[in-house]
């Protein structure tokens, strides 16, 4: 029997109903979990997703640290299950581009390509995107050797030598996956030591075909049509070095997806939404949860916790509104 599972995301876009109790922006682990909880609270819920169901987690090959899956689970499968669960309890999920939001009035408005939707509460769960480094050559070679998605693009670098920029947990984890395809990896890390989870550090150190350039800054990505090398600088000695590579995978942290909100609700200096312990933002009726908010650890385990809390706060807010 074939495994005929599929994300029903791309076609289920007919949303006739315009008015909701709760609109959740973003269908990553946070938004989907919030949807499970608001659905079970019998609040009319719409989840609007900009790009793809599952968020950043969906493009993670193997999630090893999410409780309940001792043999690990693929991010795609995990988020697919979350989506099913949210829909089971009545949340609607739609993929559409959000053009504009008005969060200041009592009834919030969200303008999308599929029309305008209204709600009493909005939960911002728009997560974050991989940060680019803005080094010379990065833009030019995007899609020509520079990549931010190893699950998508690893096969194009079969038996090649590549660089992974960033030796945090993401960089090392994705590096371990890339090693199934590539010949060798040069890791470049700005800090004097790896910051990845210790278990990942142990694993990568056992591999022979990896080399570390710690305390090194990436200066440029070079080539003619496609990537041919990178230039790095030793931050201690100032020594510069060219390293021949055919690809560069960049994992240097996250940029919050908050362009839409300008300064309502209030953001910190990096653009993350500021919340209190109830996940309330500076704006009445607007809650924020998951990777998009200012917090100490951005993982699926913390994302789902946030989603549940934000949903509970939303429920309390609506009950007060109506009492």
């Amino acid at each position: 029997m074939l495994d005929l599972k599929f994300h029903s995301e791309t076609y289920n876009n007919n949303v006739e109903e315009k008015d909701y109790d709760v609109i959740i922006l973003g269908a990553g682990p946070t938004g989907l979990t919030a949807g499970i909880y608001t659905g079970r609270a019998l609040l009319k819920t719409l989840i609007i997703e900009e790009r793809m169901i599952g968020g950043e987690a969906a493009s993670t090959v193997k999630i090893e640290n999410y409780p309940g899956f001792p043999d690990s689970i693929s991010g795609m499968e995990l988020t697919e299950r979350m989506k099913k669960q949210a829909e089971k309890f009545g949340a609607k999920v739609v993929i559409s581009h959000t053009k504009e939001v008005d969060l200041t009035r009592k009834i919030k408005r969200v303008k999308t390509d599929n029309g305008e939707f209204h709600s009493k509460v909005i939960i911002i769960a728009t997560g974050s995107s991989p940060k680019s480094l803005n080094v010379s050559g990065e833009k030019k070679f995007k899609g020509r050797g520079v990549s931010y998605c190893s699950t998508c693009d690893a096969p194009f670098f079969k038996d090649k030598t590549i660089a992974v920029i960033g030796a945090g947990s993401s960089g090392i984890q994705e590096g371990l996956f890339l090693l199934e395809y590539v010949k060798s990896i040069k890791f470049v890390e700005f800090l004097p030591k790896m910051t990845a989870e210790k278990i990942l550090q142990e694993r990568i150190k056992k591999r022979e075909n990896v080399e570390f350039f710690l305390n090194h800054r990436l200066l440029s990505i070079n080539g003619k049509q496609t990537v041919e090398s990178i230039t790095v600088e030793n931050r201690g000695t100032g020594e510069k070095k060219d390293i021949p590579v055919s690809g560069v995978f960049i994992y240097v942290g996250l940029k919050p997806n908050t362009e839409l909100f300008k300064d309502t609700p209030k953001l910190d200096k990096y653009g993350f939404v500021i919340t209190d312990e109830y996940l309330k933002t500076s704006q009445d009726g607007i809650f924020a949860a998951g990777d998009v908010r200012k917090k100490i650890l951005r993982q699926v385990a913390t994302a789902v916790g946030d989603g549940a809390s934000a949903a509970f706060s939303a429920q309390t807010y609506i009950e007060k509104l109506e009492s």
Partner: protein
Amino acid sequence: MKDHFSNFENTVNILYFNSAKKNPNFCLSTKSILYELNSISPKINLKIVDFDKDKNTVHKYNIMMPPATVIQSNTDIGLRYYGIPSGYEFSTLINSITIVGRGRIDIPREVREKSTLVKKKVEILVFVTPSCPYCPRAAAIAHKLAYINEHIEGTVIEANEFPELSREFNVMAVPKTVINKRHSFEGAFSEERFFEELIKGIS
């Protein structure tokens, strides 16, 4: 899954180009996926074409290589899929079948209106991989545009299974979309941005 097809207005006719010689393993997997779909719903018809022998049909549908899947109603509307529709690409296949089966699509009104003004032939190639979560979106837009405009053809290609084509179009990241073989862009865009890029490729 069965429920999903039950409210189809139209019958979907899938034409599948199979070969025992070229890419035989990919063909075998594709065939079994299509057989399974065929058995699930009476609204899905499946016809197998022998790529090696039936030169007329291969020519008529302008098929480059097997395995190739053409998704159509009664006439060819320009929806093509090359490769095994597995992983994330299974949803691309289901999506395209759904477009034809429901006979309607969701697309922003502006894009719909503007796209009717395109009167030149446009060939959209979208390169994808089965493990790329962003790819179904790009593929879906190509197929939607092909569905609403007879001059537009949407061809989705599994990049790993067709290395020569991938090399020809310098595919090093997916989704990669190529318009009329001369303009290309990487990444999953909104319908509006995608359409802007399409216009760049034909003007």
